[in-house]
């Protein structure tokens, strides 16, 4: 068990319980929460945990801010989408598309990293922002290849669709559930790989660079090489998550995988969950998705209750939930930069 999580103990009873709860809930989601809507949410949580954790590898461990993470996510998704579209439905095409997307993401990340990190770490943030938005425009313009704004509906192998049914131990299992377990296991493996990565000597060097790049360089570590490697790895993992997302949704489109809103969500989750902890991605994503559902309801109720006052109902409008999350985000950067996980570990 300890080798599985690479010796990275939760270091807090509450955190351990929370992680176990999330793991069990996700592992048995199809049977605990029947209904396609909750399965949809569970799969989304799985994929976002990996996506956010891979961003944490960059931000929390490498100390690098990137705004192109959704671009890499999208590369994986579009890799699968285009391969299925061009090569026809099949497991081979799906795997090939995913690998091609991951390879492209890695290569692009490496080029951006070498171009900008060599000069100045903050260039990276600005350059990735510019490139990511250019790519988003490009994807919607190259409609022959990518389906443009409408995106593409994918035809995945029949075994993964709801139409496929079989019986196991008296339970009817549909292809949809098989698809969910593909997502769940894929995400679990990716997450454990990242956990292994950050607890390896490589991860320690990254932490050293984050704390003091100058000193790390003086000891003899090639700072640029390590940062470039972290960027590339994180891009490849994000692309893998994107490929799983495309297979799960059976659809790729600019708004589902490339939008700036998703990038903002990732940033909020990482910071609120806890930078540089990996487990922060799990706790943060779970809380974020729950907040998305319940905060809106709460705000709707409050807005109705204050309907007579000026301005207040507008501030509490359910569509403005991002406003309050933004405030929470700023406060958490100031007052608990290690996020929820850091808080829980500190209170041990």
């Amino acid at each position, binding site marked *: 068990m300890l080798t599985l999580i690479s010796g990275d103990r939760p270091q807090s009873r509450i955190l351990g319980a929370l992680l176990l709860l999330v793991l069990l809930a996700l592992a048995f989601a199809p049977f605990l929460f029947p209904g396609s809507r909750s399965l949809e949410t569970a799969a989304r949580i799985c994929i976002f945990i990996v996506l956010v954790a891979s961003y944490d590898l960059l*931000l929390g461990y490498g*100390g690098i*801010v990137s705004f192109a993470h959704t671009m890499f996510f999208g590369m994986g998704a579009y890799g699968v989408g285009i391969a299925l579209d061009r090569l026809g439905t099949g497991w081979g095409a799906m795997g090939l598309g995913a690998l091609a997307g991951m390879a492209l993401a890695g290569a692009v990340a490496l080029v951006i990293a070498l*171009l*900008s990190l*060599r*000069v*100045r*770490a*903050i*260039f990276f*943030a*600005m*350059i990735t*922002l*510019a*490139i990511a*938005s*250019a790519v988003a*425009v*490009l994807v919607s*313009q190259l409609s022959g290849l990518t389906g443009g704004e409408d995106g593409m509906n994918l035809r995945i192998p029949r075994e993964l669709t709801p139409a496929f049914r079989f019986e196991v131990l008296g339970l009817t299992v549909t292809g949809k559930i098989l698809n969910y377990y593909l997502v769940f296991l894929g995400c679990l493996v990716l997450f454990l790989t990242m956990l292994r990565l950050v607890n390896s000597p490589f991860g320690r060097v990254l932490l050293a660079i984050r704390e003091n790049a100058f000193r790390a360089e003086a000891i003899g570590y090639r700072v640029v090489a390590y940062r470039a490697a972290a960027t590339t790895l994180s891009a490849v993992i994000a692309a893998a998550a994107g490929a799983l997302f495309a297979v799960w949704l059976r659809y790729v489109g600019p708004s589902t995988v490339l939008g*700036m809103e998703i990038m*903002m969500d990732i*940033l909020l989750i990482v*910071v609120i969950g806890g930078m540089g902890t990996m487990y922060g991605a799990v706790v943060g994503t779970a809380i974020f998705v729950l907040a998305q559902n319940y905060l809106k309801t709460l705000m709707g109720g409050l807005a109705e209750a204050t309907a007579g006052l000026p*301005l207040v109902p*507008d*501030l509490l*409008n359910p*569509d*403005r939930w*991002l*406003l309050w*999350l*933004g*405030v929470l*985000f*700023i406060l958490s*950067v*100031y007052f608990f*930069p290690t996020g929820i996980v850091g808080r829980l570990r500190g209170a041990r």
Partner: protein
Amino acid sequence: MSTAPTHAPTMTSLPLAERLKPWLPVALVPVLMLLGFLAIPSSSSWLTLTLAGLAMGMMIFVIASGMTLVFGLMDVINFGHGAFISFGAFVGTSVLLALGSWTGAPSLMLNLLAIAAAVLAAMAVTGALGLGFERVIVRPVYGSHLKQILVTMGGLIVAEQMIFVLWGGHEIVIARPETLKGAITFAGAALEKYRLLAVGVGLVVFLSMRAVLRRTKLGLIVRAGVENPEMVQALGYDITRVFVGVFIAGSALAGLGGVMWALYQEVITVHMGNEIMILVFIVVIIGGLGSVEGCFIGALTVGLVQNYTAFLEPKLALVSNIALMVAILMWRPMGMVPVVKAK
């Protein structure tokens, strides 16, 4: 006792090519115009496109100049700058819509007065916003780029949401004032009047900013602060106060740019600030973070390249700027006019 080493200093000046090197970026804009002239078949459309490119470049410069100075002076990178653009545009548009009788009148005087009122209101609001932003958001995170990026991004989210709250988030259509509609014909080319005005305003901002930086004592302190803030502080000047002033001025300029952009596009959306910021980042990077002159050259280059490619190869317009940025970073990794820091 050994004899003193023979010492024969050479008093010859550097070769011409070496001396010209720092001035090369200045030649970039004319060279680009020449290339455009050769590539674009009709000279009248070249003239139209050049004016459009210059107008766009000037507006981007007005927005970007404040940001680059803020960075140069205090090493503060403000990702929330886009919020000031949007706020400026919304405030300015509201004023212009309220002064509908002035903008609708066929008198140049009244039209310009209405624009001036809109600009002043926008600059006042964004300047005040900048002060608040600096105090609340930026002040606690001096010295940490990572936190600055995160926190200013959070500030951007909150500011954008506030626009939704205050103005409702629909896109607003705003017509240009009566006398600034249409174009004048010069040498067979149609030159839009508003673009001429934008180029004029941009030039005035650039020249007066340069004059302040080069000719006044305040400018001297700012320039010295960019090079070595500790030393300026040690000499008894309160660099933080100067910085707050620059931050407010930069925010106000972003507001001015927002109004100009709103009248240029004739429609405003909440996300317009963010869309412009992409160009602003490219400009700030290729110009050299912290350099006003580099920012000016970079902005004009980006404006021209964008307009020429939009005419020659429409699909490549946005990608062309990325390619430009990559090319310039390979040529000069620190930007066209690198800022010398005494550190």
